[in-house]
């Protein structure tokens, strides 16, 4: 495979560029995504390359931005919508939940909504409680939406390309603290990571950890340390949070008999709870040797000061503690 080192941000940009080159119906829509390059510089240079007709800047009007995306998608285009901060999708929820997620169903399948909504999410930038939230759990409760969350630059490229080619509205969760991370990314135009397929990030035998987004890196670090102590961790990254491919998780739990779910979004009502419930409903439950644990964001608004913000999200020590607990070492 022909690889290049790219940042998460560059990988996203490469995905959009390639899909725009391949399909003239793909266009970008959002605030400050032109000359400025988007608030996080993800679309930098694309307006220069593709013109103002295809990299379309809007006023600050999230409800209409998302609804416009849906209307354009209904009539044959493939919009990639950027919401400046995931937090601002609150202003576009009617267009997203009541319209984009419903029209395929209400038209008896006659109308498709091939739209991607990119949401720069999560903490780690000191931006505070209105600019740091992780909303993926909300969207996982809306049939009609697909929710994807890459954790590495390669995943960012492969998943975003799959999302753009998909005929449904896809919520694309981009954790902001990942934008500067660097990793190997396949150059191939057809490098696609299929949606709705979970990925085994690391093989292990003692405990299964399901995680995604920035928590993936926290868990990987913890797994590295634990392996030095002889504890073998299997890491599964669902990549698509809804609808989630549970099969590899069931299989892994049957193998390890222990499950921990780690995510940055708040614990209560989080995606982790749904995974735990699915295990409880499956015969994998009979294989469990200890209770399922969740290591997740605290149930608080995201604070600004660095030590407070760090305290909110799961860290390496939190994951290690949970593993000790589940294997009976604490």
């Amino acid at each position, binding site marked *: 495979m022909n690889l290049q080192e790219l940042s998460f941000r560059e990988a996203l940009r490469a995905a959009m560029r390639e899909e725009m080159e391949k399909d003239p119906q793909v266009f970008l829509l959002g605030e400050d995504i032109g000359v400025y390059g988007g608030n996080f510089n993800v679309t930098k240079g694309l307006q220069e390359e593709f013109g103002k007709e295809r990299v379309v800047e809007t006023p600050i009007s999230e409800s*209409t931005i998302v609804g416009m995306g849906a209307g354009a998608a209904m009539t044959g285009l493939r919009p990639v919508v950027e919401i400046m901060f995931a937090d601002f999708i609150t202003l576009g929820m*009617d267009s997203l939940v009541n319209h984009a997620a419903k029209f395929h169903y*209400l038209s*008896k*399948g*006659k109308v498709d909504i091939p739209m991607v909504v990119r949401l720069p999410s999560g903490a780690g930038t000191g931006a505070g409680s209105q600019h740091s939230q992780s909303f993926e759990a909300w969207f996982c409760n809306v049939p009609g939406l697909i929710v994807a969350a890459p954790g590495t630059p390669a995943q960012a490229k492969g998943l975003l390309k799959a999302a753009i080619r998909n005929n449904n509205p896809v919520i694309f969760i981009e954790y902001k603290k990942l934008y500067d991370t660097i990793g190997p990314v396949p150059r191939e135009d057809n490098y696609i990571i299929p949606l709705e397929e979970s990925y085994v990030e690391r093989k292990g035998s003692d405990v299964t950890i399901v995680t995604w987004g920035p928590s993936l890196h926290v868990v990987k670090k913890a797994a590295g340390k634990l392996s030095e102590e002889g504890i073998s961790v299997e890491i599964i990254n669902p990549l698509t949070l809804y609808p989630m491919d549970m099969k590899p998780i069931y299989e892994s739990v049957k193998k390890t008999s222990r499950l921990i779910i780690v995510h940055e979004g708040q614990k209560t009502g989080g995606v982790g709870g749904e995974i735990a419930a699915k295990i409880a409903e499956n015969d994998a439950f009979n294989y469990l040797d200890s209770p399922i644990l969740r290591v997740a964001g605290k149930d608080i608004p995201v604070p600004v000061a660095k030590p407070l913000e760090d305290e909110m999200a799961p860290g390496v020590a939190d994951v290690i503690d949970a593993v000790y607990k589940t294997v009976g070492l604490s």
Partner: protein
Amino acid sequence: MSSLTNEEIKDLLYNMLKARRFEEKLQEMSRKGQLYGTCHLGIGQEASGVGAALAALHDGDLAILTHRGHNQTIGMGADLSVLMGEMLGKEQGCAGGRGGSMHFFDLEHGNYGETGVVGGTYPIACGMAFTQVYKKTGKAVLCCSGDGSVNTGNFHESLNIASVMKLPVVFFIENNLYAMSTPVENTMSVISLSDRAQAYGIPGMTIDGNDALEVYEIVTKALEYAKSGEGPFLIEALTYRQCGHSKNDDQCYRSQQEVDNWRQEDPIYRLSEYMKENHLATEAELYELERKAFDDVLVALNKAQDMDEAKVQNVDRFVYAE
């Protein structure tokens, strides 16, 4: 004088009659407990609904409708039996029982459906209009809404965006004087809601929404304007909902006198009178149209009753596209 031929005017009246009979039938069935779920009727608003729909249909344009969109749906040519089937929760209904009265769809005629959230049509219409520019189709979008929607954020966001981007969309607002039970004077400080167009630098006009021919002419011109590259156009069509907002509405917020006064302005009556006065149709021909519309609705109802019940095993079909 109308730009429509005599035959086309007859057809316009015929569609208004069909819409009226269709809704009266729904009202009757609802009262008898034969309909599950709610429906929002536009009895009295046929001139604005059908007239605007006909303008869009003639030009091959697209439309998106509100929860009170039966008049437009029928005006754009939807098959009555498919609509009735949807009302009865039948598999062959336009959404196979998934949508009901608030979600009629009829893509074959450019009708992208009704939405049940007030103000929800504005952003979608902007996106549909964006596609027309992007693909250079030369078409425009008829964005239907009501007076209740003009105080939502979507109205202001979308009028602004449509103006800035010069999108080919006609914002067609039926002002029936009430947002559910709340009179417009309690919700707006402007005399005419079309005055608001000025704030977005677009043309706005208030018209007699119970005059079907005027509605047709003005909407046609507005669609042409939008397609010429000038951008959006706002029309406020003054009309009146002679029935309640939905089936649970006892209309305690207005007097019978007011309703009776507006019945004197009934759009079907007015168009019929116009046709007689101008010798476009005889009394007998008008009667024949009325009888035909009446029969059409009964035939549609019979057909719908013979359709299959919505299949429970298909309830999760069409949640996602392939």
